[in-house]
């Protein structure tokens, strides 16, 4: 049963990656996953904004201009300005850089560590697995934001520490999922064959088991990017994340948003729209990736 589902994932991978021309695959994806395609479009737009930020932005995102404080949206400032007279559109476009950097780094490091640890835990089994799973239990019983808060309190604020704070809670969540897939793979004869060949444990884990749990790993990564962006925004909103004057969406909501919400609602609205849209896009895309890669859910 396991072998057939694995084979199906592999077949799906090949089907998606090389056999057919790109546009055909793309067309099928759009037809089968309309929501996922919308998500992909949002993600692509965000990456485009982040890469070409210097060309796209009309103003310097960190430039204060006291003549233009809290200007409502107009032709000069399309989304208006904040309480320091900084152009909101420019700050939001540059904010995509911060969000994507934190999102991708945290999701990639967290899932990759989880992947290696999860596979190792399944491979060694026994006492190691039992103790390792209890440690993961402990980390998972801490609500995400509380663990992140503690990490920021220890290392201080700033972008690297925010990434650390977000990465740590991801590790046990990914390790748990990967482990359950890896447990099934451990029982497949080719692992015995690899052992009989006298390969080292590290080689069996990295060369024979890890490639076979790529599907849950990819699903976890795409799911984590959105969560990481949201967590970064929450930490920055609490004043514990990215610090001024770096443009970050959560931070933009912290400073003036509540104070000026009534007289200058645009300060409170646009950064939130940016966060929601970005996370929405990644979640839609992540769902589509999961539907495509997970054979159990695909039949539904």
């Amino acid at each position: 049963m396991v072998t057939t589902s694995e084979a199906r994932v592999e077949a799906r991978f090949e089907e998606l990656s090389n056999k057919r021309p790109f546009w055909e695959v793309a067309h099928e994806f759009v037809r089968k996953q309309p929501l996922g395609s919308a998500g992909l479009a949002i993600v692509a737009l965000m990456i485009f904004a982040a890469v070409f930020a210097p060309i796209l932005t009309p103003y310097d995102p960190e430039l204060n201009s006291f003549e233009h404080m809290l200007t409502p949206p107009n032709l000069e400032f399309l989304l208006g300005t904040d309480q320091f007279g900084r152009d909101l559109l420019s700050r939001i476009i540059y904010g995509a850089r911060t969000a994507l950097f934190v999102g991708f780094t945290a999701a990639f490091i967290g899932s990759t560590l989880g992947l290696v640890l999860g596979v190792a835990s399944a491979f060694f089994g026994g006492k190691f697995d039992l103790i390792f799973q209890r440690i993961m239990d402990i980390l998972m019983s801490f609500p995400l934001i509380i663990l992140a808060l503690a990490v920021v309190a220890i290392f201080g604020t700033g972008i690297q520490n925010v990434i650390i704070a977000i990465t740590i809670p991801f590790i046990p969540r990914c390790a748990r999922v990967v482990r359950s897939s890896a447990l099934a793979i451990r029982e497949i004869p080719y692992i015995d064959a690899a052992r009989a060949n006298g390969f080292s444990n590290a080689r069996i884990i990295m060369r024979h088991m890890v490639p076979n749990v790529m599907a849950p790993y990819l699903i976890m990564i795409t799911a984590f990017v959105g969560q990481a962006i949201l967590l970064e925004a929450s930490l920055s909103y609490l004043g514990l994340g990215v610090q001024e004057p770096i443009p970050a969406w959560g931070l933009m909501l912290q400073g003036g948003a509540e104070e000026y919400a009534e007289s200058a609602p645009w300060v409170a609205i646009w950064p939130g729209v940016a966060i929601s849209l970005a996370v929405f896009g990644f979640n839609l895309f992540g769902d589509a990736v999961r539907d495509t890669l997970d054979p159990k859910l695909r039949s539904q």
Partner: protein
Amino acid sequence: MWQYIFKRILLMIPTLLGAAILVFFLMRLIPGDVCEIRLAGTGLYVDQEQIDLCRQQLGLNEPMIVQLWDFISGYFTFNLGTSMWTGKPITYELGLRFQLSLQVAVMATVVSILIAIPLGTISAVRQNTWLDYFVRAFSIAGIAIPSFWLGILIILGLLITTQAWFGTPWMPPIEYVSPFKDPLGNLAQLIWPAVATGYRYSAVATRMTRSALLEVMREDYIRTARAKGLVEKLIINRHALKNSLLPVITVLGIEFAFLMGGLVVTEQVFNLNGLGKLFVESVLNKDYSLTQALVMVVVTVAVFTNFLVDIAYAWLDPRIRYA
């Protein structure tokens, strides 16, 4: 069954113990301590002697292992001690906030049930139609919209609509009143944060309802019900929905556990004096004893809820047999 329950209880002990050790050392990794913050936080020069005296009074100069033992033995004997920052008993500090956070958590759960079950059902019954896509997009948006921003929007919306309708802007009251004293005033304050968090938490439950219902709809007994000519409405309400709610209850249970601790950001927006706000304050003040107690309360609630959910699951579904 009893053997399974016993085994689950035994497995809870290392988790709780591990969480206690983790929070103990995590707090002590944070540079500075409560004495330095309290005495030197104002920026004035302070004698080292004074700081030493303060540490002695709070027991911070004891060896780590003694402090750890005091904390863990205190936790298991329900003696949480006093807050290092305010000097008041921790049970007193917690009691005030616990009621508020518990109420918001319960209300948010009710909100999320009211959203999740009808929407999940519609989405499953009309699978792969535009209605289904809309519901799914709506629920994914629930996870995507940060609850603090939704909170800001709710407050903004309230201000603008009340201004337009009544001429004077109205804000939810800030002072907490017990629901037993003034139910309306209490509701006026807490319904908004409950909606903001409830919408977010409904997302997972909506998807769970949808996929569980889809699975049940393919069962043989549904075909039988259709074959004997039952109305579709009856099939869904009586046969399918009842059998698909089990995993939804599990998800709600697990989420409820995290709601208690996860209210940190929402409480900040609505200026509520709950556990989440207390937690942020206690971490910033490096109030070891209060932070430790708070984390243990949240973790204990989470671990016990998980346990109860597992037991309820085994109890309710006779097909599940735990050996």
